[in-house]
């Protein structure tokens, strides 16, 4: 695997903390890996205590992901194997060159203005040459990759509405300054937040396929390990990254293998039925929960190297796929996880 050069976004000040070096937080790591194997799972929402490495994990994902083939010169990273690309450089049927690029993991910072998110006229071209040119925004850059919003619960409402619309359609429609264009914007939405800072709108919450809850570890050895690794990383980032390179490469191979296996992984009728029963027992609204549960279990099975989805996979992803879809019980926040666990135990036997 060629080492992807970080040319997609302006190079951050330092290399990110390696994904493999994150201590604990297994559910969060698993959810991100599942989304990396099958983007159709539909996004990950990470919420919980401060200082638990929520954004660290997402930013680390960029360095972990295997590269992807994209059409040379396409500003939307269109897939050469895709049925249809965007409407500018990659016309259907034409012979195109492709190259390997890193999977984009795009940060949507708070305070971003709408023109940078959606894309707008290129200001420089307009001012200097009087030319109308489209300058793609963050949605274009995130196409086929990940769009990450830290503190997603604090994002301005009008940006949230816009994101929901694009995430649902997979396409960004731009109508401004006499420009009228559309381009593909299929991305995995990853959000993180702390429920104490304000809660997420239910429409947005429902848009995330998986939701994971992170808690500060309470046992001393784990906590010491977290502090030790973080400190080592900050003092000598290069040698720390080198030390974890091998573990990262192993994870990367696992993702590649799982992606290849995904179409071959079977979902037996028994598993479908189990998933349906579980959703019925929990009274989740709509079919989205069931669908996500099955997809996530299938991605997990291919990560595990299993031939078909079994109870083991359903059990492990049930909480992440369903906890944010339960009919809201405002009386206990922690309760939704416990409710899923109870239903799982009742159905699969403790």
């Amino acid at each position, binding site marked *: 695997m060629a080492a992807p050069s970080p040319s997609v976004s302006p190079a951050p*000040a330092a290399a990110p903390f390696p994904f493999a070096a994150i201590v604990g937080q297994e559910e969060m790591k698993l959810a991100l890996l599942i989304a990396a194997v099958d983007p159709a799972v539909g996004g990950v929402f990470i919420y919980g*205590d401060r200082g638990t490495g929520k954004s660290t994990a997402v930013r680390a994902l960029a360095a972990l992901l295997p590269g992807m083939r994209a059409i040379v010169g396409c500003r939307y990273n269109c897939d050469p194997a895709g049925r249809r690309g965007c409407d500018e450089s990659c016309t259907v049927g034409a012979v195109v060159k492709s190259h390997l690029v890193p999977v984009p993991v795009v940060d949507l910072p*708070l305070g971003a203005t709408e023109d940078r998110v959606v894309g707008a006229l290129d200001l420089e071209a307009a001012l200097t040459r009087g030319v109308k040119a489209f300058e793609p925004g963050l949605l274009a850059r995130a196409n086929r990759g990940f769009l990450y919003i830290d503190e997603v619960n604090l994002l301005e409402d009008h940006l949230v509405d816009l994101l929901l619309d694009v995430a649902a359609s997979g396409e960004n429609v731009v109508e401004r300054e006499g420009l009228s264009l559309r381009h593909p914007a299929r991305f995995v939405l990853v959000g993180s937040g702390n429920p104490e800072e304000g809660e997420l709108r239910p429409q947005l919450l429902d848009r995330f396929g998986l939701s994971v809850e992170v808690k500060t570890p309470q046992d001393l050895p784990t906590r010491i390990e977290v502090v030790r690794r973080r400190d080592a990383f900050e003092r000598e980032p290069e040698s720390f990254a080198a030390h974890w390179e091998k573990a990262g490469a192993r994870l990367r191979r696992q993702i590649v293998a799982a992606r290849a296996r995904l179409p071959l992984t079977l979902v037996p009728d028994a598993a479908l039925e189990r998933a349906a029963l579980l959703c019925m027992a929990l009274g989740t609204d709509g079919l989205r929960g069931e669908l996500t549960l099955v997809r996530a279990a299938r991605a997990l099975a291919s990560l595990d190297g299993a031939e078909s989805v079994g109870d083991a996979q359903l059990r492990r992803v049930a909480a992440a796929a369903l906890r944010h879809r339960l009919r809201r019980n405002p009386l206990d926040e922690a309760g939704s996880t416990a409710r899923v666990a109870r239903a799982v135990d009742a159905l699969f036997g403790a």
Partner: protein
Amino acid sequence: MSGGMAAPAPSPWQDALHVAALFARDPHGLGGVVLRALPGPVRDRWLAALRAALPVAMTLRRVPLNVADDRLLGGLDLAATLQAGRPVLQVGLLSEADGGVVLLAMAEQRAPGEVARLAAVLDSGVVALQRDGLERTLPARIGVVALDEGMAEEERTAPALADRLAFLVDLTAIGLREAADGPQATGLAVPVASVRAAEAVLEGLSAAALALGVFSLRAPLLALRAARAAAALAGRREVSTEDAALAARLVLAPRATRLPQEAPPPEAEAPPPEMESGPDGADRGDAPAELPTPEEPASETPGLEDIVLAAAQAAIPAGLLAELRLADGMRARARLAGAALRPRAALRGRPAGVRRGAWRAGARLHLVETLRAAAPWQTIRRPTIGQGAASDARIAVRPEDFRLRRFTRRARTTTIFVVDASGSAALHRLGEAKGAVELLLAQCYVRRDRVALIAFRGRTASLLLPPTASLLRARRSLAGLAGGGGTPLAAGIDAAVALADNVARAGDTPLVVLLTDGQANIAADGTPGRPAARLEAEAAARRARIAGVRVLLIDTAPKPQPLARSLATLLAAQYLPLPQADASQLSRAIAGASARRVA
């Protein structure tokens, strides 16, 4: 120097000066200082000490309250852009302060969005700018001094920010006389980066943090950096035991939520155990089992861990823990309040910036911002307007330039009446409740508030009147309210909390008015039985308090009952015995309660 035999304990002022000296060694690494003090000579002296400790060239930038994003993060410099004919970046305060320290005035008043922007910059050391057609990553390795001028207990620097700043210095109790000049820097200092810390220091600080109930993992990390800074300040290349102890005292002690070896907090006058089920309190009960036990180091010399812990413990001010429990309760409350602060698309209220959008009926156009938005595009728009007409002097404004004023609205109050309509509540009470609801509704026309009504009787609670400001609807549903049957109090409280939560999500502020005599006799599953029903009602009351719902409990028993009063305590509710209440008295009491909330 080992554990207990430290010379006279340093005064708070000396500690504060220590903090200034340490922070100055590594402003970005240590994040910063929450400086809790009113403006005045003591705070000025501390700031002067900090300035003296910082390198001469280092800038101290002040970030005013309600600073707009284009000043905080940066944006398009419109004047320069138009003059130069190409996009010119205006750098924001945070990247201007790169390598220096920013002073955050009135830190306790900062909105969550502002705090989150600062937190992102503190974490990454850069400003990721995605604004006004510009995209830049600008270095911003800053330290923050959060000037916290809060007086009341709940006025505090946002936890999201405080968590990232190593130190909390409280100058409120320090008099001018105590705030004399402190020790000067020795000049021996070595670079922080060259200081090594033994594994034992890292482990000791981590253990001490856990023992003190400091759960965020940033705290031990910041303590470790503080220990390095302390060593660097003293000219050592290796962190010593004193350095670690100092770091524990200055970084960990102010964050403590419990005393070491404290069993689950004594329950004498403390709130009930449900307080513990806060976001990070789930495992608090069994954590002390893993703490270093006091008898362990009997034979050896005290380990570093114990010294560090002792140093931190000595610095925990008396009464801190009681304060923290209070703060816990406040936090639960803040959640609902936070939701209430975000009403949708308000057209009136306090101005809160501008946004792009279609100019629909009722929206208020921000003319200056609209013209600003249109200005850069004039060159390319010019050929399309007029075609030779004398339109050169005009500015071409397109719909996409429209900038609308945003407002934050004063949250409406929705008063949720929860009426005990059981047989035990005398029927005439029901009449009074009806009267009070009607009176309140009449006031709603003036105040634009709403009311809702939940009644519980028989086996369940039912929502008779969803939140409304319509007098007619309310009268109709009230007329249909019959009395009699058992008292499913738990069901009533739960229903009220659920509705209050919905109300808060819609952007309103809920106030629950519970009219009951406290005599529950139907359990949540509908089975009769006094003891079970009572336990469930109490559990429901605790849940309501955790949810942060504001409650006014009106005791409707002919003689005020201890039952209702204890229920009010569990709910953290205002208690009002109204043995001879009439409707107008009742509505006055409610108006008083909601006014108090606003005040």
